[in-house]
């Protein structure tokens, strides 16, 4: 079991490891289910963006200077649309400021249509060590429904190519789609697993507010699987991945030993991450306090503020105790390793032993003297469980 030191990170004077999340807000096309901070790439000036990222990195450094940086995550949007030299420049700026740990994990999210071989090689040369590829489905009709501009064959080709270039490649898929039966998903997932990936992120389709899908769904144009079907799909997914040597390490993430995403694990465990770019969120330790930062969402507004003030952070405030313990459970319980009871006690969350036992008997928690660990069944009802665990 991985050691868990969420609150010790927060409350003890030694600083938690540092990660950097960098948001690239542009995509070639906007998918109808997506509620990320995304924009079509229009009149984007690479020089201007490079300068803005540099400025914000320097500001972030002034706020949290202790390095080295353990992980970097280029998220989006579609950061595979970034010019490889910009990626290289950003990484060397990070290295100049904090220092990059020698074994740093550097992830970049890629879309199958913007990942030609030459570009992947350039990204690798720029320092990217891990590619997360948005495959979404291996069914062409489903890809069309999801508004994707690539075919299943394109996605598989991109994946095979990426594996030749990077040591760590992950696939994202969306399941529990309208009309998707257990059998359909079994076949599709089997095809994915047949590629023997080292890491997969398997998300059930969620209808997010303010998306085209939300309007269509509300208008009754399509329906998503009901609770029981979605639970069946999830459970089958867990079984198939485990059998293929890719057990879950988090609610939606599966990896072979040594291939889990270190960046995300660090943030689930309560590590520090600096949010760079429009709409990026950050968490950083500052003495006893833990600051939460949010940058301006709109790219132009963010750019303008960075140019005027050196950073685009619109919010920067210390979390109170309740917010901290809420985040500890919200993030920590997602992990298969759970949350240390000692950290919970420091955070002020008490779970009476009889309650712990009752939840174990109900199959929601796993037995453990040291940790609060959701069972696979418990992970499936995590939102409800967390609401129940937190003092109201």
């Amino acid at each position: 079991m991985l050691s868990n030191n969420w609150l010790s990170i927060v409350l003890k004077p030694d600083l938690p490891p540092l990660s950097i999340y960098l948001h690239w807000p542009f995509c070639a096309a906007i998918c109808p289910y997506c509620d990320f901070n995304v924009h079509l790439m229009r009149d984007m000036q690479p020089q201007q963006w490079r300068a803005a990222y540099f400025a914000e990195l320097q500001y972030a450094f002034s706020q949290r200077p202790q390095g080295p940086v353990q992980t970097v995550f280029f998220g989006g949007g579609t950061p595979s649309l970034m010019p490889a030299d910009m990626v290289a420049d950003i990484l060397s700026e990070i290295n100049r400021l904090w220092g990059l740990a020698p074994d740093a994990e550097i992830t970049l999210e890629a879309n199958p249509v913007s990942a030609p071989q030459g570009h992947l090689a350039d990204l690798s040369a720029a320092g990217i060590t891990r590619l997360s590829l948005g495959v979404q489905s291996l069914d062409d009709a489903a890809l069309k429904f999801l508004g994707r501009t690539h075919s299943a064959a394109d996605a598989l080709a991109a994946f095979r190519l990426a594996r030749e270039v990077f040591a760590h490649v992950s696939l994202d898929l969306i399941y529990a789609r309208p009309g998707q039966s257990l059998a359909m998903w079994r076949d599709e997932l089997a095809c994915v697993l047949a590629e023997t990936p080292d890491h997969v992120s398997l998300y059930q389709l969620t209808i997010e507010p303010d998306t085209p899908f939300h309007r269509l769904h509300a208008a009754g144009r399509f329906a998503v699987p009901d609770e029981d079907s979605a639970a069946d799909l999830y459970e089958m997914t867990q079984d198939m991945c485990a059998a293929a040597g890719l057990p879950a390490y988090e609610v939606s993430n599966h990896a072979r030993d040594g291939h889990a995403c270190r960046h995300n694990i660090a943030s689930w465990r309560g590590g520090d991450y600096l949010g760079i770019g429009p709409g990026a969120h950050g968490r950083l330790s500052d003495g006893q306090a833990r600051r939460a930062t949010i940058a301006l969402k709109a790219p132009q507004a963010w750019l303008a503020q960075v140019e005027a003030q050196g950073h685009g952070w619109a919010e920067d405030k210390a979390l109170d105790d309740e917010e901290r313990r809420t985040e500890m459970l919200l993030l920590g319980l997602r992990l298969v390793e759970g949350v240390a009871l000692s950290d919970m006690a420091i955070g002020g969350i008490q779970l009476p032993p009889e309650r712990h036992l009752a939840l174990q008997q109900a199959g929601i928690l796993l037995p453990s003297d040291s940790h609060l660990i959701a069972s696979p069944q418990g992970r499936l009802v995590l939102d409800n469980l967390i609401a129940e665990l937190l003092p109201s």
Partner: protein
Amino acid sequence: MTTQSHIRNFSIIAHIDHGKSTLADRLIQLTGGLSAREMSEQVLDTMDIERERGITIKAQTVRLEYTAKDGEAYQLNLIDTPGHVDFAYEVNRSLAACEGSLLVVDASQGVEAQTLANVYQAIDVDHEIVPILNKVDLPAADCDRVRQQIEDVIGLDTENSVNISAKTGLGIEDVLEAIVTQLPPPSGDRAAPLKAMLVDSWYDAYLGVVVLVRVIDGEMNRGQKIRMMSSGASHLVDQVGVFRPKRDTMATLGPGEIGYFTAAIKEVADTRVGDTVTEERRPCDQALTGFKPSQPVVFCGLFPTDSSEFEDLRDAMAKLRLNDASFEFEMETSAALGFGFRCGFLGLLHLEIIRERIEREFDIDLITTAPSVVYQLAMTDGSMMELHNPADMPDVVKIDHIDEPWINASILVPDEYLGAVLKLCEDRRGRQRNLSYAGSRAMLEYELPLNEVVFDFYDRLKSVSRGYASFDYQISEYRTGNLVKMSILVNAEPVDALSTIVHKDNAENRGRAMCERLKGLIPRHLFKIPIQAALGGKVIARETIAALRKDVTAKCYGGDVSRKRKLLDKQKEGKKKMRQFGRVDIPQDAFIQALKMDD
């Protein structure tokens, strides 16, 4: 000062929504009571809740000045009454203050149940009645047919009826002329000692208690010392006046007039509707017979969702009762719901209105428990006990028998829905007394136990007749019934606020229906929840709410956690709208929703 021969007092009566208040609008407008700018639709429906629901709850009195075609000036005192059966007592006292009535009938609908109920009341007090056929602007209006119906069903001469559209204003002059020429003036002796009927009273923030009276004999003057004959309490009159509908003070109210007075009376409770007001120094010999006080017939518990608001709820109730003596409350404690009040109402609409006013005007979230009627329990030791709350039911071995209130219901329904309505009445333990026809409409008379009607009978009646049936009732008597208390257990714990009293023969069906309903109302939890209905210790129905299977956010990374935290806060807010029973959260509206039956 108007001589009595030039006074006309009348009530506007009708079935719900047939246009009483709209007619009142036109009469006020045409006689110049309000300018066009001051006018609004149903201007006499002043309460928010009246305006929103488009119904009249409280009767309103207005004085109009009208110069008739004979060239004479008349004083018209109009009382707009509510149509809904829950407020029948308002009609009753309004009629007592007048000599005549305008019977409004919607010419597109015809005679309905409250048309009959109200017109019979008017006939009982010897009113002259002018039939008014309203809504003639509607394409579906059929005046000849409706006139025939009025003659056949009510036995009222329609020779002098008036066709109008209260909406467009058509025929309003004719109504005014009919009032003057067809309705009798009041009689009364100006020289005699004051004798006035207390018609209504309410609390006004500026004036204190305002009392509406109809003067029978004598005069009421500012500065006069008066006495309430029932209590003997005396007061000094400090203001006398009328509503036009704006308040207008005057020096005197003479015999036959309707108006208000104030007299530094502290509480509405110090005034009794139907009481006789007389002079302190020269009392009249005989008091008026008075009215039966209105009796609450439906009881339920009201509990604050947030138990810390109990005292606020008490204050809110006390304030509402100031203006509504027909609403009763007393403190109640429930094992399930904590501190609250057992409240008595005139009917379900009355309940709903009070509840809505508490929630809106006082901002208190409420849990309402199952409405119940008043049972009379004959105990084995020979004593009697009134039971307002099923949770208070004593041990059955101590009860000899239980009596429940019955009603006489009249239902008017188009022929094609008769079958469905008969079935509904039979399912509710009804006994048919009479079935006759007025054209293609069946007129049904049924005896029904009130407890079968109180909750959703009216909704069901409307739904099985597609809205075409109308319904009216009077309480008749108490009868012994084979009644039992049904308890509901959620996760093996009895929830007292869900217990009901049911007829033994129906218990199993009701139990099953309630368990099924609760299954749909209580959200899934982390564990499975059995729901049982039981008579004594015997379980008669059972359902199980399966454990929650999936409730998890698919994606939650560092950038999502702030938003997720906010969602969680919202979820906690939602949880506050639930009540915890053991480990189970029950939504606050489940206590009422659980009782709804689809039959």
